[in-house]
C-alpha cells in the first residue's frame, strides 16, 4: 500500500490523542469576564495541577469528526449483534428529546411547571402496561441490568413482607442467561443456582422441577431466550415457580420479538425489565445511555420503588419519598426520576408505530431472522435443530473449525467485508456461538447481501484459513492485542508521556 508522508490514507485521517494535540493554554470557549470579587471558598482553592488540554472549536470538531470515522454504526451498515437489537434509530426521536420543553427541565422544578413531562411519563407507562399486560411499572431504572435489580429487589421486598426474606435465597438462572442475570441476583443478596439447557436450546424443564423448592425466591428466565428461541414451557415454569411460592423474573431484552403479539403478563411473569434502547429504538450511543423500565405484576406492584406517579384529577404528582407512598416501596433506584431523555424517544417511537406497527415490528424481526436462517442453514451448523427461531439466528463455528477457522476469525473477516460481526461466543451454552440478530429495520436486499458474504466466507474458509487468521486487513486497525491490554493495563495518558516524547 502507498506510504504517505502525513500518515493519512486518503480520506482516512490519522488522529493523535487529545493529549498530543491539545494544550492547557488553548480553549474552544469564550466566557463573560470574571469580576475578581471576594470568594467564599474557605481556603479550598485548587492547588493540585490541572493538566487538562484544550482545543479551539475548529480543532475540537476535527478531532471528534476524525475519531467518529473510525467507528462502524447502524447508519453505516448492517449490525447483526445478537441480543443487542441494533435497529434503526429514528431521527424524529432525537429531535423530540431536544425540545426545550423536555431538555431544559430540571428534575426538581415545582411539579406545577412540569405537568407535560409527567403526562409523558404517564403515557409511556400506559403503553408499556397495555403492551405487556402487567400491573405497574417502575420507570426509573437506568438500563436493563438496573431494571433486573429493580425487579429482583421488588421480589426481595415481597418475600420480606411475607417473612420469607431469610429463607428464600436461591434464584434459578439458566446456563444460557446473560451475565447480568446472575450478577444481579448476587447483587441483590441471592444465591444463584444454574439450570441446564435442553437439546432444543430451551431450559430443561426437568432440571427446573428438580431444583425448585421452598428456598427458591425466583427464577430469572429470558424469553425469547438468548438462543433466539421461545421457551415453549414458559407457562409450565411459571406455574411451577408460583406453586413453589417463588416469583418469575423475565429478562425482557428480547421483548422486541414479541411486542404487540404476546403479553408477558399472560405468561405469568411477575417482573420484567424493558430495554428502551433495544425494543423501543433509543440509540445505544457506543455503550449507553439506556433505560430499563420494569413492569410488575399485581403481586409485586406494592413494592415498586419511588418515585412513581399519581394522578389526582387533572394533576399529576411524583411520589418521591417513601413515607408519602401508598404501598411499601422497596427504596429508590437512583437520584431523580430516571432517563427522561429516553422516555421521550421511546414514546415518540411508540406513537409513530402505533399498536399495528409495533406488532409488525415483532413479526418482521422474526421474519427477517427466519429468512436468514433459511439462507444459511446449509452452510453453517444450527445447533438447535429444524424449528423456526424468533428474532435471532444462532449458529456455531463447528463447520469452520475443521479448516482451522474459529468464530473470532470469521468475525474479523467480516470487518473486512464491511460488516459488524454478530455476537460471538454468547450464549455460553453453544461452543463458538454466532448469534445473528437482523432486526426488522433491515431490507431483504441487505439480508441477501449479508447471507452471500457469509456463505462466501464459509467457502473461502475451506481453502484459505490464513486470510481469516490475519484479518482484519482493511479496517482502520489490524487485529488488536487484547491480552497485552489486560496483562499490562494502561488505562490513561500521563503527562510524563508528553515529556518523554519532547525529550526524544
Amino acid at each position: 500500500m502507498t506510504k504517505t508522508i502525513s500518515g493519512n490514507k486518503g480520506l482516512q485521517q490519522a488522529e493523535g490523542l487529545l493529549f498530543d494535540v491539545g494544550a492547557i493554554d488553548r480553549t474552544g470557549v469564550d466566557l463573560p469576564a470574571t469580576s475578581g470579587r471576594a470568594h467564599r471558598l474557605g481556603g479550598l482553592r485548587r492547588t493540585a495541577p490541572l493538566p487538562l488540554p484544550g482545543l479551539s472549536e475548529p480543532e475540537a470538531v476535527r478531532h471528534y469528526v476524525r475519531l467518529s470515522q473510525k467507528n462502524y454504526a447502524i447508519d453505516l451498515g448492517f449490525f447483526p449483534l445478537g441480543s443487542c437489537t441494533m435497529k434503526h434509530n429514528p431521527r424524529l426521536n432525537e429531535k423530540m428529546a431536544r425540545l426545550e420543553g423536555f431538555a431544559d427541565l430540571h428534575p426538581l422544578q415545582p411539579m406545577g411547571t412540569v405537568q407535560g413531562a409527567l403526562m409523558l411519563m404517564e403515557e409511556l407507562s400506559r403503553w408499556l402496561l397495555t403492551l405487556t399486560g402487567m400491573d405497574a411499572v417502575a420507570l426509573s431504572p437506568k438500563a436493563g441490568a438496573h431494571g433486573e435489580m429493580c425487579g429482583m429487589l421488588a421480589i426481595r421486598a415481597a418475600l420480606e413482607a411475607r417473612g420469607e426474606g431469610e429463607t428464600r435465597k436461591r434464584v434459578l438462572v439458566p446456563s444460557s442467561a446473560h451475565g447480568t442475570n446472575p450478577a444481579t441476583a448476587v447483587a441483590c443478596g441471592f444465591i444463584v443456582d444454574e439450570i441446564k439447557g435442553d437439546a432444543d436450546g430451551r431450559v430443561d424443564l426437568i432440571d427446573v422441577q428438580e431444583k425448585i423448592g421452598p428456598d427458591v425466591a425466583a427464577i430469572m428466565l429470558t424469553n425469547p431466550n438468548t438462543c433466539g428461541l421461545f421457551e415453549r414451557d414458559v407457562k409450565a415454569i411459571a406455574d411451577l415457580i408460583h406453586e413453589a411460592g417463588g416469583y418469575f423474573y423475565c429478562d425482557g431484552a428480547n421483548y422486541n420479538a414479541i411486542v404487540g403479539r404476546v403479553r408477558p403478563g399472560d405468561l405469568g411473569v411477575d417482573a420484567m425489565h424493558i430495554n428502551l434502547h433495544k425494543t423501543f429504538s433509543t440509540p445505544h450511543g457506543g455503550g449507553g445511555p439506556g433505560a430499563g423500565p420494569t413492569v410488575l405484576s399485581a403481586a409485586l406492584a406494592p413494592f415498586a420503588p419511588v418515585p412513581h406517579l399519581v394522578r389526582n384529577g387533572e394533576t399529576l404528582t411524583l411520589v418521591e419519598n417513601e413515607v408519602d407512598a401508598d404501598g411499601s416501596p422497596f427504596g429508590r433506584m437512583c437520584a431523580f426520576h430516571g432517563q427522561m431523555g429516553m422516555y421521550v424517544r421511546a414514546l415518540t417511537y411508540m406513537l409513530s408505530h402505533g399498536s399495528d406497527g409495533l406488532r409488525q415490528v415483532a413479526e418482521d424481526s422474526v421474519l427477517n431472522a427466519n429468512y436468514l436462517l433459511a439462507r444459511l442453514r446449509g452452510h453453517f451448523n444450527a445447533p438447535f435443530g429444524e424449528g423456526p427461531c424468533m428474532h435471532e439466528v444462532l449458529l456455531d463455528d463447528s463447520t469452520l473449525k475443521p479448516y482451522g477457522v474459529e468464530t473470532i476469525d470469521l468475525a474479523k473477516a467480516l470487518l473486512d467485508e464491511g460488516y459488524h460481526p454478530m455476537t460471538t461466543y454468547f450464549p455460553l451454552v453453544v461452543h463458538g456461538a454466532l448469534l445473528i440478530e437482523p432486526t426488522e429495520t433491515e431490507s431483504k436486499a441487505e439480508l441477501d447481501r449479508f447471507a452471500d458474504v457469509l456463505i462466501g466466507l464459509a467457502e473461502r474458509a475451506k481453502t484459505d484459513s490464513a486470510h481469516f487468521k490475519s484479518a482484519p486487513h482493511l479496517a482502520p486497525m489490524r487485529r488488536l492485542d487484547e491480552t497485552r491490554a489486560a496483562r499490562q493495563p494502561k488505562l490513561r495518558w500521563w503527562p510524563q508521556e508528553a515529556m518523554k516524547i519532547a525529550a526524544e
Partner: protein
Amino acid sequence: MRYLPLTPEDRAQMLGAIGAKSIDDLYVDVPRAALLDGPVPLPPHQSEMEVERLMKLLASCNIPAGKTAFFLGAGAYRHHVPASVDHLIQRSEFLTTYTPYQPEIAQGTLQALYEFQTQVAMLTGMEVANASMYDGSTGMAEAALMAARVTKRYRVVLSGGVHPHYVETVRTTCEAHGLTLVVLPPAVDDEAAVSAAIDANTAAVIVQSPNIFGTITDLRAIGDAAHAAGALMVAGFTEAMAFGLIEPPGAMGADIVVGEGQSFGNALSFGGPYVGLFATREKYVRQAPGRLAGETVDADGARGFVLTLSTREQHIRREKATSNICTNSGLCTLAWTIHMTLLGAKGLKHLATLNHETACDLADALGAVAGVEVLTPRFFNEFAIRLPKRADIVLEALLARGVIGGVPYSRLAPGMEDVLLVCATETNTDEDISAYAAALKEVLQ
C-alpha cells in the same frame, strides 16, 4: 410504516423461502392462548407530523428553566453547553453504534473513552477512572460495594451532607447486598462527626464535597481517620465543575471519587440520562465496577485501544462480577469529554470562577433580604438558606413572580422545612439575581 423496509411482496417471498404459510407459523412455540390475534388496544401508527404535533403539545405544558429566573441545583445543574457538543454526539458513527466489542472498527469510541478516563482522573486528581456509571447516585452505591470488596468489611458511614436521593440509592442497593449503613443526621457541615463515626469495622466513609447544602470540605482529616482505621474514603460530589476551582478529592486522600458529571456536556433533561464519574487508585482498579478502556497495539504494532480488564465484568465473570452494570452512559461521556476538551484547563478555571462569583453575588443578594440566613459556610456555586417561612410555600410565591428559586430540602427528605437549596451558574444574569432578591423580599414581607 416508514421504519420498516419490508414490503408486502417481500414478506410473501420470504415466507415462501422459509417454507412457512403465515407469520404465525414462526410463532408456533408460543402457547396459542398467549398469541394475540389483533392489535393491543392502543392507537394505530401516526405520521411524523402528527407525532411531532403531539410531543410539542406535551413539551408546551412544561415551563423550561430558560424561560424563568432559575436557581435550581441539588445534584443537577443548568450550564451552557456549546452547540458543537450536541452536533458531534449526534454523528451517526457515535450515536448509532454499540459498546466497542470489535475494537478494530470502534477506535472512535474507544479513543474517546480513553481520553475521557484520563480527563476524569485529572479533574478529580485520581490515578484512574472508569468509562462511566449510570449517574452519580448509582455510582456512589457501587463505590460502597467496591470498598467492601477491597476491605472485606461491611459497615459504611455516610455523612449527613450527602444528597438524600443518593443516601436512599446507596441504602437500597447496599442493604440488599448485606452492608450496614450508618447515616449521620442531616447537617450542613459534619466533618468532625464523620471522622468520629469511623470504627475498625468500617469499610468506607462516604462524604460529599460539594454536598447537598453546597458545602465544600477539606477532606484530609476524614481521610486520615479512615485510613488509620483501615477504611477507604469515598469522596462524592454533587457538582463536578467545582474541581475547576477547588482542591480535588484526589489531592486530599480519597480512595474512590464518585459523583455526577452532568454539568459537562449534558442537558438537564428532567433528571436523565446523566453520567456517573468514577475514579480510584490504580491499586484498586481490579475491584472497580464498569468498563475500562486501555491502550494496546495492533498486529502491525500501531497504538490502539480496547475494552480491558473485563474479567471483572458480568459478561465474563457472571455471579462473581464486580457489578451487574452492562449498558452505561456512553454517549453522555462523549458529550462530557467533548465539552471538557473545548474548555481545557484555561476555560474550565474561568468557567468555574464565573460560577463561584455568580453564586457569591447571589448569596450576598439573598443574605441581604431581611429574615434570610445563608447557612453554607464555604461553597462553590450552591448554598442553603434558612427562611422565616416554609420553603415550599415561599417557592410557590416566587414562581408566581417568574422566579424558580431553589429546591426545598424537605422535597428530598422529611424535615428542615425552612431550608431552601439555591444555586447559581454562569447562565444566571445580574438581572436574574436582582429579580430573585426583589421577589424574595416581597414574598417575605
